[in-house]
């Protein structure tokens, strides 16, 4: 190996407990290639520029740090919705808790089944978007995921999916270390919504590769559960065809460490990508570190991308945003927008942002803004002077702050569900 021993050793220690899963020839080759990629880059270190604000140590270490399982009597998210449920407990598919994997206009297979056979569209996608996403910035944990993931689903929508697919990630063991890899193909003109919710495990590595064909639409809504001690490193890789749409919203409350990476490539003209997130952390109920790292590449004409990330932090909670828009020379008439904002409810919370624009085309519109602020005292007094108690007035202002990200959720039922969760969190975390 050409790599310095200092970088390889922790990696080999990390890999020692893992076994490359069996599968068809193509699958074994894809995994071996991922492993080679991983060995080439090594695990991320604190000194890596891309991990400057988030310490990867607990993601790198051989075993998952323990995390208590959160238990609540409350109805889980999306309960009221007609959806196809696919349940994983500590990263392992639970057939008994899941619905039959049958839906009109959609093919659904478990990853392990797909990788034992030769399903061409799965073969053409598994690890492919991840590989593309390794340049110009490396994402070692995504390569590790591609190499070792045994569980996950492969989904191919050939028409308009009649209802959302709901991936439910339950956390049952305090020491679970889960790796899930999903592959999604939305064929030309098709549409699909995927819902994800739950913490999944004490430590969770998740990749989703999404290929969106011409005039196809993919919607993604995610809630990362309420467990305080869980850790997660997730990757969304998406590639869009002409006039395709990708819309993703993530709500994160609690969690000692979350690193959500999104790598989105607009490769067909007139495509549109909206990526949004709201994260709320209160250090008083457990350490909280949330990192949104986004990389959007415009490689076609007249595409629109929008990033809207909001964070509400208090009592030592930490927020990170790293967002980049790369506009390639041919990507004329690009409309790129990026907003990352943090509302710090006290002096102990912190937010670090690294917005980046790299533009090689001359006829583009790109803007980015990043702000860190406190509750507007004038507005707070105005509300209180009208009789709204301080706690409720603060909540109103917090919700107003989050509104621009929540509004990215198109579906009203889903938006209402997210708002209910948000209000619940606010009620439990009155300052």
């Amino acid at each position: 190996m050409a790599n310095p021993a200092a970088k390889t050793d922790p990696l080999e220690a990390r890999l020692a407990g893992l076994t490359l899963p069996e599968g068809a020839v193509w699958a074994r080759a894809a995994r071996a290639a991922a492993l080679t990629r991983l060995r080439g880059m090594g695990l991320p270190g604190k000194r890596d520029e891309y991990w400057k604000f988030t310490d990867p140590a607990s993601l790198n270490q051989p075993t998952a740090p323990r995390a208590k399982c959160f238990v609540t009597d409350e109805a889980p998210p999306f309960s009221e919705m007609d959806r196809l449920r696919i349940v994983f407990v500590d990263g392992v598919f639970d057939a008994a808790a899941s619905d039959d994997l049958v839906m009109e206009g959609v093919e659904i297979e478990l990853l392990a089944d797909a990788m034992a056979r030769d399903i061409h569209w799965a073969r053409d996608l598994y690890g492919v978007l991840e590989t593309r996403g390794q340049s110009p910035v490396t994402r070692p944990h995504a390569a590790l995921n591609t190499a070792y993931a045994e569980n996950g689903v492969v989904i191919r929508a050939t028409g308009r999916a009649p209802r959302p697919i709901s991936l439910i990630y339950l956390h049952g063991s305090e020491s679970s270390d889960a790796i899930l890899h999903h592959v999604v193909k939305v064929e030309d003109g098709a549409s699909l919504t995927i819902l994800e919710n739950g913490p999944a495990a004490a430590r969770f590595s998740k990749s989703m590769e999404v290929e969106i064909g011409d005039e196809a639409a993919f919607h993604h809504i995610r809630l990362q559960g309420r467990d305080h001690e869980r850790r997660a490193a997730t990757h969304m890789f998406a590639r869009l065809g002409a006039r395709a749409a990708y819309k993703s919203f993530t709500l994160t409350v609690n969690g000692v460490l979350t690193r959500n990476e999104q790598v989105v490539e607009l490769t067909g003209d007139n495509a549109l990508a909206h990526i949004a997130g709201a994260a709320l952390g209160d250090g008083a109920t457990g350490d909280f570190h949330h990192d949104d790292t986004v990389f959007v590449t415009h490689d076609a004409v007249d595409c629109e991308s929008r990033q809207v990330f909001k964070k509400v932090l208090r009592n030592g909670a930490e927020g990170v945003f790293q967002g980049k828009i790369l506009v390639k020379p041919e990507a004329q008439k690009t409309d790129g927008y990026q907003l990352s904002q943090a509302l710090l409810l006290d002096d102990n919370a912190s937010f670090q942002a690294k917005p980046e624009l790299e533009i090689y085309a001359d006829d583009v519109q790109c803007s980015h803004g990043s702000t860190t602020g406190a509750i507007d005292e004038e507005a707070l007094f105005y509300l209180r002077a009208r009789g709204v108690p301080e706690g409720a007035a603060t909540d109103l202002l917090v919700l107003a702050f989050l509104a621009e990200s929540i509004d990215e959720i198109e579906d009203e039922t889903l938006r209402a569900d997210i708002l209910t969760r948000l209000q619940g969190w606010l009620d439990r975390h009155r300052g």
Partner: protein
Amino acid sequence: MLEIKNLHVSLEEEDKEILKGVDLHVEAGKVHAIMGPNGSGKSTLSYVLSGKGGYEVTSGGATLKGADLLEMDPEERAAAGLFLAFQYPVEIPGVGNMTFLRTAVNAQRKARGEEEMTAAEFLKVIRAKAKELKIDADMLKRPVNVGFSGGEKKRNEILQMAMLEPSMCILDETDSGLDVDAMKLVAEGVNALRDEGRGFLVITHYQRLLDHIQPDVVHIMAAGRIVKSGGPELALEVEQNGYADILAEVA
């Protein structure tokens, strides 16, 4: 209704006394006006009464219907019946005007142990009151005061007052920034609320507002004190001769 006794107030940040012994008694059913030159402490008085931070009451007190105002949080004062129409209404992006008002109305009702208003009931009442103030449906839906003109902001204040039905209304330079028509509209809104159970304290620079809202008592405030009180004719005197004569007379 509102009783202010020997009220002394300093700025918290700097050791500067703004109010130097204000005495004032506004009876139920009466309209009192306070006029005075810039920097006399008129707005400070309104802020201190409504509970804004940054001020320190060094002596004296203020009661509303016998209850100690200064001991209460701003929201408790509001629930007790105090209302301040702001000189500069605050813009709150992201909070809908309707949501805001309904939250306020119901928070006050809850604090007083009254039944909350249903959405339908609220809608009916606010539509009627908005119409009287020529506030259209679009303004109700928009975020609080965002993108409102000066006149719209002031009409929105009066709408809030009409919805909250306070017993003691303080209007802080509600006429500033209004043209004659807007001022008439605002004055009509205020006059519609005048009744025997309600007191008003109207703070203004100019006599012209008092043409439309007829005061029972006019006070002149200067250098943190009420220096002269009288009937409506006092306002006319200010209009004709300015404050100089009055200030010289009481000096």
